[in-house]
């Protein structure tokens, strides 16, 4: 593996190796001194051309826990505002002595372009509505820690799948690890051609609810207010929200995941969000461990040997 750009090309063996390493890094994070010298002397740059605090902080914590140095880039304070091109910006940062870049960009495919321009590993930290591979890894890690495996699990991804890079990444990773994935949402929020993916599709959450092991709730982009894609937030909650009533109907050992930030009272009920079977904070903790596994896989060792 030279870059981590997408989950689409990752096979079961590669994913399992990353998750196994992530489990060991999760143990490191529980130590009194949660830091190992694995990447001492390496520099990781987080190049976030689109605002993000959570993912950026998670990558920086992961790099620091591996003893790598970190540099960060924000578009607002950079020469981008002076008209410097994307290519010149990343070449400049590379020339400072960076060993790996984490890239987030609103344009689909931007991390691939940067990987072509540079001679160092690139990690996709989210490109448009396309891919967010480390989110999928931390989700699969959280599910695997809970159930021991993803083989045979019924997982529903609920909500705005059409605009979700989280869903696009999770679908391939979860399927490769043996889970049966069902996409649930109104037709306006589902992809135009879901037949191209290894998934089932349902427009009615209540139809599939009682068979599920994992309910993965996507964030409703309330800043868009629903707009043309669904009539109102209240209607969304009525049909697709994980309300307390729906939560009670789940299998007793089923769990709820959410990539955050949550809209309590919209896609997830207030009580549900605080239930011990909502693994949202465990996902956040696992995000650091999963990203440590990715950084270590790309920088820890001579990949050509």
């Amino acid at each position, binding site marked *: 593996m030279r870059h981590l750009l997408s989950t689409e090309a990752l096979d079961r063996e590669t994913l399992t*190796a990353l998750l*196994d*390493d992530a489990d*060991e*890094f999760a*143990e*490191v994070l529980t*130590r*009194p*001194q949660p*830091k*190992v*010298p*694995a*990447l001492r002397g390496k520099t990781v740059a987080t190049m976030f051309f689109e605002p993000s605090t959570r993912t950026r902080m998670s990558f920086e914590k992961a790099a620091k826990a*591996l003893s790598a140095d970190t540099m960060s880039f924000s578009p607002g304070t950079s020469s981008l505002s002076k008209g410097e091109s994307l290519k010149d910006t990343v070449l400049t940062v590379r020339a400072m002595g960076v060993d790996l870049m984490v890239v987030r960009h609103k344009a689909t495919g931007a991390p691939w372009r940067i990987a072509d321009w540079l001679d160092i590993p690139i990690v996709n930290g989210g490109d448009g509505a396309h891919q967010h591979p480390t989110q999928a890894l931390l989700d699969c890690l959280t599910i695997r820690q809970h159930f021991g495996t993803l083989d045979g699990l019924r997982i529903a991804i609920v909500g705005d799948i059409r605009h979700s890079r989280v869903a696009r990444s999770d679908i391939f990773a979860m399927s490769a690890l043996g889970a049966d994935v069902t996409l649930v949402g109104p037709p306006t929020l589902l992809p135009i051609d879901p037949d191209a993916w290894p998934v089932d599709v349902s427009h009615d959450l209540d139809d599939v609810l009682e068979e599920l092991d994992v309910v993965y709730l996507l964030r409703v982009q309330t800043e868009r207010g629903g707009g043309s894609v669904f009539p109102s937030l209240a209607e969304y909650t009525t049909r697709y929200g994980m309300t307390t009533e729906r939560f009670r109907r789940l299998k007793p050992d089923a769990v709820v995941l959410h990539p955050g930030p949550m809209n309590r009272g919209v896609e997830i009920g207030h009580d549900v969000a605080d239930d011990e079977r909502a693994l949202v904070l465990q996902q956040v903790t696992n995000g650091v461990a999963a990203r440590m596994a990715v950084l*270590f*896989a790309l*920088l*820890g*060792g*001579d*990949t050509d*040997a």
Partner: protein
Amino acid sequence: MRHVMTAEDLARATRRIAHEIVEGNHGLADVVVLGIPTRGKPFADRVAAALSDIEGVPVAAGSVDIGMYRDDIDTRPKTRIGPTELPEPIDGKVVVLTDDVLFTGRTIRAALDALTDLGRPSAVQLAVVVDRGHRQLPIRADYVGKNIPTSLGERVSVRFEEIDGEDGVWIGTEETT
């Protein structure tokens, strides 16, 4: 491949090392056995079982992985990270580290760094199946199954039933392995 220790030789050496550990530490009160994956772990399990036998108390073996502590990550092929599992906190304990082969000493150096991050043992001792020489660091073993002088081109293969399907030690040249 030259067969230098049979399964019986390995079992006898393990028992002797267990006796030496009990003798050297005046019992087992503070002793924790930790193997370095991959093949230090089955050796740790064998040593712990022999210690239990001798003293009549249960002894659990753990593991301490060095994959995150290597000093040569840019020049060696990537290896997988193994588990780090402590059966109990190691603060104030005597940690007996176990590995299959003691060679350059760099693995042990990395393991000592890992232990430092995991706690503060009162002492660290080292038990190995084979000491083959060629140290690059000032490190020595406290308990040795067999000293086997080797040339740099030779390869020492310690095998355990749990991993390799057989017990014993073999020596070959790089070409024959």
